[in-house]
């Protein structure tokens, strides 16, 4: 993996050097490049995800699923005369790396769409770069509502900040309340202790949960914040135990949520931890040292395994020989990539079978009209760029495995 980023770095440096030398003889060089891709015009779908680091389990699932979509689009010749390629960059869940990757993808003229990123905080750093270049970005995993509906979405003043940003995932404005509804009405919990990791995603999710939970009649008995990469949660756990909470709601990702739950259970407390889609990974149970039984998460969409439309994806993924699982966002990543393929097709078809010179801007327009039956159900976008599919599932840990507790749509 290290070698790959080294290769990417070398390639970037080499490409930069080539660009400089190309200045003198532009015409002939471009021609040579065009000829090399004999399978028609090459269109690159960029991927930005944490391929290394704590969240690599999710990131690798995203990359591989996009890779699968690209291979299938090529095999089925979805867009005649166009061969799709994938260019995957690693953001290590860091907003700064995400922005660098966005700049790099924008600079590559063959990139006509990007799938990613995983983290809402990273998305914030990338949106403007992509929007300025009219390059379409489809995230399979970002759930923070402000990304599509602006800072003041909660007060009903929804303004779409970036026209080129779309997502196939449901937002926290739906996920948080859906979780709160389950915690209060189904799990019969009334006293919650809220913990977040101070990141865009975690804070937003906890706020959305808190609003609905208190509206239903539940009580917030305490709130605290932790840092990402924190290992010791003993003080927070002491506070949780003395607060009398009967459930902990955690806004954040599994690398902190897992140890938090494990350390809490080790003290003998039988308080379940609940969270959002960032917690829904098998690694969570491992990091909790297999003490996570009873813990809950909400995750976007219906469980991929249960959908007929997804069975083919799961089979193809396994046949594809990927060494890492497709993880929580595999189906959404596949659909995101497929949406880009469909948008490219619409633009190419309208232009008489050729990729137009202003393809990026046209693809952004085409994206809002994309509609097809994907892995996760119907894929299309509303006026904010959000997925129209608003299904969610509550999972519970049973015998160290995630099991489905409830699937539904939050209606408010």
């Amino acid at each position, binding site marked *: 993996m290290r070698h790959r980023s080294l290769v990417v770095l070398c390639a970037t440096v080499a490409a930069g050097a080539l660009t400089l030398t190309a200045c003198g003889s532009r015409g002939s060089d471009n021609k040579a490049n065009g000829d090399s891709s004999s399978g028609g015009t090459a269109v690159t779908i960029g991927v930005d995800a944490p391929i*290394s680091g*704590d969240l690599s389990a999710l990131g690798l699932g995203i990359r591989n699923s996009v890779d699968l979509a690209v291979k299938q689009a090529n095999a089925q010749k979805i867009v005649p005369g166009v061969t799709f390629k994938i260019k995957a960059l690693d953001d290590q869940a860091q907003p700064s790396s995400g922005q660098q990757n966005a700049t790099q993808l924008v600079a590559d003229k063959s990139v006509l769409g990007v799938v990613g990123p995983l983290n809402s905080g990273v998305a914030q750093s990338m949106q403007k770069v992509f929007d300025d270049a009219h390059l379409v970005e489809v995230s399979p995993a970002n759930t923070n509502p402000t990304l599509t509906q602006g800072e003041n979405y909660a007060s009903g003043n929804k303004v779409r900040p970036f026209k080129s940003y779309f997502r196939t995932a449901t937002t926290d404005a739906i996920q948080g309340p859906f979780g709160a509804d389950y915690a209060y009405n189904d799990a019969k919990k009334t006293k919650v202790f809220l913990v977040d990791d101070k990141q865009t995603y975690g804070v937003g999710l906890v706020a959305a949960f808190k609003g609905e939970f208190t509206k239903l009649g539940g009580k917030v008995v305490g709130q*605290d*914040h932790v*840092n990402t990469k924190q290992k010791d949660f003993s*003080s927070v756990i002491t506070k949780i135990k*003395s607060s009398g909470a009967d459930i902990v709601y955690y806004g954040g990702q599994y*690398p902190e949520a897992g140890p938090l739950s494990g350390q809490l259970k080790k003290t003998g407390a039988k308080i379940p931890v609940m969270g959002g889609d960032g917690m829904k990974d098998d690694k969570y149970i491992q990091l909790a040292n297999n003490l996570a039984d009873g813990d809950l998460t909400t995750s976007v969409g219906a469980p991929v395994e249960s959908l007929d439309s997804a069975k083919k994806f799961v089979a193809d993924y396994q046949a594809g020989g990927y060494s890492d699982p497709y993880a929580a966002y595999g189906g959404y990543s596949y659909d995101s990539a497929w949406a880009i393929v469909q948008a490219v097709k619409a633009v190419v078809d309208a232009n008489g079978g050729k990729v137009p010179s202003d393809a990026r801007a046209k693809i952004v327009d085409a994206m809002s009209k994309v509609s097809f039956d994907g892995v996760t159900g119907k894929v299309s976008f509303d006026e904010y760029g959000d997925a129209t599919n608003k299904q969610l599932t509550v999972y519970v840990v049973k015998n160290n495995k995630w099991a489905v507790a409830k699937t539904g749509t939050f209606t408010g």
Partner: protein
Amino acid sequence: MHELPQQLANGLILGSMYGLIAIGYTMVYGIVQLINFAHGEIFMTGGFGALSTWLALPSGTSIWLALPLMLIGGILTAVLIAMAAERFAYRPLRNAPRLAPLITAIGLSLALQQAVWAWYPNAKDARTFPQIPGGPFNISSYISIQPADIFLLVAAPLSMLILGTFVRKTRTGRAMQATAQDPDTAKLMGINTDRIIVVAFALGAAFAAVAAVSHGLRYGQVDYQMGFIAGLKAFTAAVLGGIGNIYGAMLGGLVLGLAEALATAYIADVPGMHQLGGGSWADVWAFVLLIVVLLVRPQGLLGERVADRA
């Protein structure tokens, strides 16, 4: 206030771990005046050494049998890496300007992290660490502690005792004190200072490995980045206690651990400080404490006992 006893216990346990790591910083500094920033990574390799030992044992081995072996495996790994680092990274720079070995230490720290990341199987994510079975022990209705905490609460004072005796009673220990006071004179008196420096690195690494095993037992995982934050905290503890003083390192660790636990629990309750409390601000308050102590006592809490430096 019924949280207080538990928060104090949390702080003591966390502080013991910082103290164990801090010994490595303070011993190396006491003898060669080098801040070994790679020490956090030595700590990390100790954890992976112990994990490798566990994985090498046949599955189903009792943790009680495995634990001493894991300790030995972790200590061996950390000590060998520290000795190699001393020999190949620091010794060639012995007479170079002070900044050169410091930069080398930072480079070495990154190199060790990336080496584990790249070559240890599945180390790109956190690896789970074996656990001591058995529930929490309730000492009173207010305090409950884990088996892993007991390991640490026994290991830390024991290590301190062994180290203290070693430094005061043995020939090598006294040679270390002499080298710390004046390396040139010590050399004239026939002390092999090169050997003493290696011993200082090795001892520090051994205690770091003990801390790493307890870290794994307590948090159930080791990962390639765990040395960074732990190392930074331990370095703070060493400075807080008076760098160069081994008892200061342990005291500094305990004070830091307590400060963090209490800041998490109580700062938010102080009127007007609501925004500045809670778990995420613990580090900030720990460093505020460091600044205050250094303003009043620039040499650290126990910094004046120069004779005890080792």
